[in-house]
């Protein structure tokens, strides 16, 4: 019996020495710091390095902090406005760039849409700082509109890409078939294109929302006094070192991001 069971080592074409362990190490390195951050956000003690038992204390502290409330609300207002307008604009642009024969200047349009992905954030941020400083002096307006405009602009490519991918994956003969069946162009759009595009639009909106919510650099440079968002507030808190409270806020924000990104993947694969 045992003679029959002699194990012969099989040759695996795809295997390379040490690759699997490096990959596992990589995943561990990727998640361990985040896991530590989340775990320590539940720490009862004040010292973030020593575990003193499980507690929701710091979430409570953060929740009660009026400043945190204020910046959170501001973050969500900006992210909502920016993701809504960026998605709307990106949907129109995606329709305009995919649903017709190639025309001159389309490459230029692609370049302009993807520009925020290529230019370093610090450069865009500084340029906006200069530009808005001029407008602020001329108009005297210091409101949230500047942040909303900047966020909308850099969210457009993130909303545009999944929407365009969806449009390109969509069989154009479906629209042709609808027209053949007496649907006018508007009815074709309403009954065929839009329903099929909708998951892409939602996915784009999710991504735009996350991107806006997470932005630090451009917001930090563009904001006027008293316009902190959650990330810039956290960056400012850093001077006092990382407190367990910041840990709790970070974990909560992390949760929101992961939720939205998961939704994005589910929608994209539908």
């Amino acid at each position, binding site marked *: 019996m045992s003679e029959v069971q002699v194990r012969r080592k099989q040759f695996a074409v795809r295997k390379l020495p040490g690759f699997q362990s490096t990959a596992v190490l990589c995943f561990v390195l990727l998640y361990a710091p985040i896991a530590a951050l989340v775990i320590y956000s539940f720490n009862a003690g004040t010292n973030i390095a020593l575990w003193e038992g499980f507690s929701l204390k710091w979430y409570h502290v953060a929740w009660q902090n009026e400043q945190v409330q204020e910046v959170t609300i501001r973050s969500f207002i900006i992210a909502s406005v920016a993701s809504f307008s960026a998605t709307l604009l990106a949907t129109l642009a995606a329709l305009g760039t995919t649903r017709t024969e190639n025309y001159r200047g389309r490459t230029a349009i692609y370049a302009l849409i993807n520009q925020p992905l290529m230019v370093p954030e610090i450069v865009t941020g500084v340029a906006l700082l200069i530009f808005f400083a001029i407008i602020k002096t001329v108009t005297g307006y210091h409101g949230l509109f500047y942040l909303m405009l900047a966020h909308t602009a850099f969210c457009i490519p993130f909303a545009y890409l999944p929407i365009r991918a969806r449009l390109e994956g969509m*069989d154009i*003969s*479906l629209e*042709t*078939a*609808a*027209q*053949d*069946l*007496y*649907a*006018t162009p508007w*009815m074709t759009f309403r*009954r*065929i294109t839009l*329903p*099929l595009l909708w998951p892409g639009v939602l996915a784009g909106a999710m991504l735009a929302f996350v991107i806006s919510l997470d932005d630090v650099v451009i917001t930090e440079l563009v904001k006027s006094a008293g316009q902190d968002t959650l990330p810039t507030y956290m960056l400012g808190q850093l001077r006092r070192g990382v407190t367990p409270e910041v840990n709790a806020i970070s974990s909560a924000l992390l949760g929101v991001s992961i939720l939205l990104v998961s939704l994005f993947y589910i929608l994209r694969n539908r």
Partner: protein
Amino acid sequence: MLQASSTRQIAVTVNAITKIFGEGDNSVVALEDVNLEIKENEFFTLLGPSGCGKTTLLRLIAGFEHPTSGNILLYDQDITFLPPYQRPVNTVFQNYALFPHMTVRQNVSFGLEMLGRAKSEIKETVDSVLNLVRMEELANRRTSEISGGQQQRVALARALAPRPKVLLLDESLSALDYKLRQDMQLELKRLQHETGITFIFVTHDQEEALTMSDRLAVMDEGRVLQVGGPSEIYNYPKERFVAEFIGDSNFLEADVTSVNERLVRIQFYTGKEFEVPAFRDMRVGAHVTVAVRPEQVTLSNSLDAATFTGVIENMVYLGTHTHYIIKLSNGSEFTAHIQNLRGHDRQFEIGGAVGIALDPATIQVLKD
């Protein structure tokens, strides 16, 4: 029969249509001066290799493209520039193009809804059309949950539901496997018969075209080469391309030796002469190409009476037939398909000399 069909009304007139895609140096001529008349309640097929322009012609009739010149009439109405949603013409797409976010019933109802028909009428029509294609039981399924053959039926039902004056079918059977395709061929004929709608069918499959069509147009490189009934096209191909594309043919060179009013006398290189019907102006001394179907010749061991003589280079046994590849005395190749009869096996051998006899009725003179 011929009388009856000629008194039928013309449903679609394709008048001097030319279609050029692109501009300048990049332009491609997809259709060149195409003229066709498709009769009411006819099963008409556009047959040709891929890229011959048949699908473009179909798209012009459907309204998805507009011609560069010429016009298209539906009965007496000029529809050349009518958008697709205003033409009483429906299409069964090659990939079916079923709406994936709708059920079978919603797909079939779509056209009627767009036409603004009453709900009760829509339900009634959809039920009867689903019944016609035997899909009533799957009416509430999603289109992704049904098989390829069923999708085909839904696509057909969707296009038939608004009762179009003309139904266009774009390579509609090519995605199905062999058995299903044969069933659908019969099904399509039945539907056409029951609905009385004019069908325009596009295919590259000559067998399918011959089986299904009342008449067909053979196309190549944007031109219509020949229009006629299946047997007319098969037996009397006017051009080399038609003779080659539909069935197999041997092409032989001959010289014209005398010309009568209706008959011409042609001579092959072997000196054998035949009288064949003249269908065009021919001068004495002109050089012509003739086509001969491989199954319409006889082989024999007697070389003297034969039209041609040659040596058998290869033979392939195919059950009902045996194919012989014969090298003629002038060096060219000739193919003969000889029916196998029990007890007459193995008359000829590879390397053996053989005589080929032609019947004058089977010799088809081609245009240059």
